[in-house]
């Protein structure tokens, strides 16, 4: 008896069922999620990203930050993800599919060689700009013993001509600090990357993701 049609049919059926159940389903349900209106702010959640932050996602992808950093907060009953950010205001909550609406691609991640960055931008905006650049420029000068790569290649070292640039990163130390008369300025890539990181905030109120209180 020729069982070939059975084999081919069975292979299609097993594959096709998972394809429908996981891929097509995700596409037609999660893929259609839209931002929801926020009564308090009058805006929508998740809020739109600035153009800089959108560009920053590309730099984040090109340099493989996602192989060390997740952006995924799991619920309190499963993990310490929420308990790790006790001071966050508003409190952090588990991340849900809609949180990734602005993401292209969605950097959920699968390893935590570095800390989770889902809420990195929380309460750190603006003032942290220079600190963040110092960190990216040479992490071990900011966090001793850090294993995060240095992203010096996203910065330009140049001779100061006339006035120092007001974009220059200040307070740099260590072997790669600029010599007197030189300054380190972020490239366009570094600027948009920083803008993206500071935009990371995944605790806007969403109907499907209420804030969990401590039990």
């Amino acid at each position, binding site marked *: 008896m020729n069982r070939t049609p059975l*084999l081919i049919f069975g292979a299609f059926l097993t594959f096709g069922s998972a394809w429908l159940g996981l891929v097509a389903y995700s596409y037609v349900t999660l893929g259609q999620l839209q931002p929801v209106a926020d009564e308090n702010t009058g805006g929508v959640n998740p809020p739109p990203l600035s153009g800089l932050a959108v560009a920053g996602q590309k730099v984040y992808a090109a340099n493989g930050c996602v192989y060390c950093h997740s952006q995924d907060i799991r619920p309190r009953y499963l993990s310490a993800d929420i308990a790790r950010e006790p001071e966050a205001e508003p409190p952090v909550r588990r991340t*849900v599919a809609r949180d990734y609406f602005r993401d292209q691609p969605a950097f959920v991640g699968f390893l935590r060689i570095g800390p989770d960055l889902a809420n990195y931008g929380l309460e750190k905006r603006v003032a942290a700009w220079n600190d963040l650049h110092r960190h990216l420029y040479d992490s071990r000068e900011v966090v001793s013993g850090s294993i995060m790569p240095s992203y*010096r290649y996203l910065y330009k070292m140049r001779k100061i001509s006339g006035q120092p640039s007001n974009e220059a990163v200040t307070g740099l130390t260590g072997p790669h600090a600029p010599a007197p008369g030189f300054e380190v300025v972020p490239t366009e890539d570094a600027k948009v990357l920083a803008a993206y990181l500071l935009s990371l905030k995944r605790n806007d109120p969403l109907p499907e993701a209420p804030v969990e209180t401590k039990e």
Partner: protein
Amino acid sequence: MTTSARSPQVEKVDASLRLPVLIFFGSAALWLVVGTFLAAVALTKLVWPQFLDGPAFLTYGRIAPAAVNALVYGWASSAGLGIALWLLARLGRAPLNYAVLPVVAGLVWNFGVFLGLLAIIGGYSRSIFLLEFPGFVSAILFVAYLFIAVWGIVLFRNRAAGAVFVSAWYLVAALLWFPGLYFTANALLVWHPVPGPAQAPIGAWFSSGIVNLWLAPIALAAAFYLIPQILGRRLLSYNLSLLGFWSFALFAAWTGMAQLIGGPIPAWMVSVGVVSSILLFIPVLVISINLLGTMQGSYGALRWSPSLLFTVTGAGVFLLAYVQGTLLALPGVAAIFHFTDVLIGHGALLLFGFVSMVFFGAIYYIVPRLTGRDWNGDGLIRWHFWLFVGALGVAYVSLTFGGMVQGFALNDPGVRFASSVGFATPFRLVAVLSALALLLASNIFAHLFFRTMLAVLEETKPLPEAVTV
């Protein structure tokens, strides 16, 4: 085993496959060395971040995905395609016609892998796991793949009459599944990306599918062929083969969701992933009983057949790796060990310990049959085996233990994040040293392969009758 007096038909089949299959194996061997080297560099950076730090193209976030892609698309997929073609031809006693097309397609595939790695290193990746190659590269790979796979299916269609052996089921299924996986995932995540919220489950479906529906079935096909063939006996049970194959096909495609527990997907998807991971234990057990049961009472044969040694070890690791997969899918376990080095250890176990191990066994078996030349240097094959097994074992154990400690640290809000890195570091250091040993083992394999190729090229005398492995 001595397969003396090979029939003219077998000779004809082997002659028709010589060039394409050897091209696949040769390029695979090169990518194995490249991939293992890049993996060793990446791991080193985790314990010694100053190492090669600075230039963009050497940064961890580019080297690590380059390593994984070199190993999955360069090494394992090329080797798997060569093995699949040879097995289908051999099983069906059908020669490969118009071999020039798969040869060209194989070269194009390799060129695609090369371009893709350059793109990752150059910063053109979108950092989606196993889909890092830019869209035009994955399109090249997809087209090249079709030309290769169609030849595999044609071989199957042209087979001599008779029952279809279990290996052929796995191969035909894998040849059909891969394009389904690769096309869907590229279409939805690379060529025309769907909105962010839908990406995580599709990505998880794809990355688990690459192992479960592509590499694993080819490795299982090879094991189902090689173990009884080398021992000169029948497979333990036909019914078990049937049960194993269909239950594996049914459950394996759904398991990927378990890793997203607590993540941004609907809860039922996670549940399906967990349940199917648990159910997958049934086919895994059935397949293992069938494979290892065939070995029953013949373990002495491992002494004289390196092919068998590699294949049976790979089959044993299959059981181990999939049992671990089931355990890692359990919600309580996943919650602690997801995001840790345990996953790296598990990935290495699947890719090196199971898939690569069986592929080595198959290549050691097939090449002498294609070239008519024995592997002179049996001692080196043993070196390859023990070094590989030892290095992988040490890397696996240390990454797993390190990852466990890391997981407990990450899940204790009282422990600073930096401590999780500190705890993992000594274990990662051991893994670096093992990765270097693994690199040496891969080099021995490549050396053996290319030395044999050179000898074949120099040789003018006709093929000897007897082939030994």
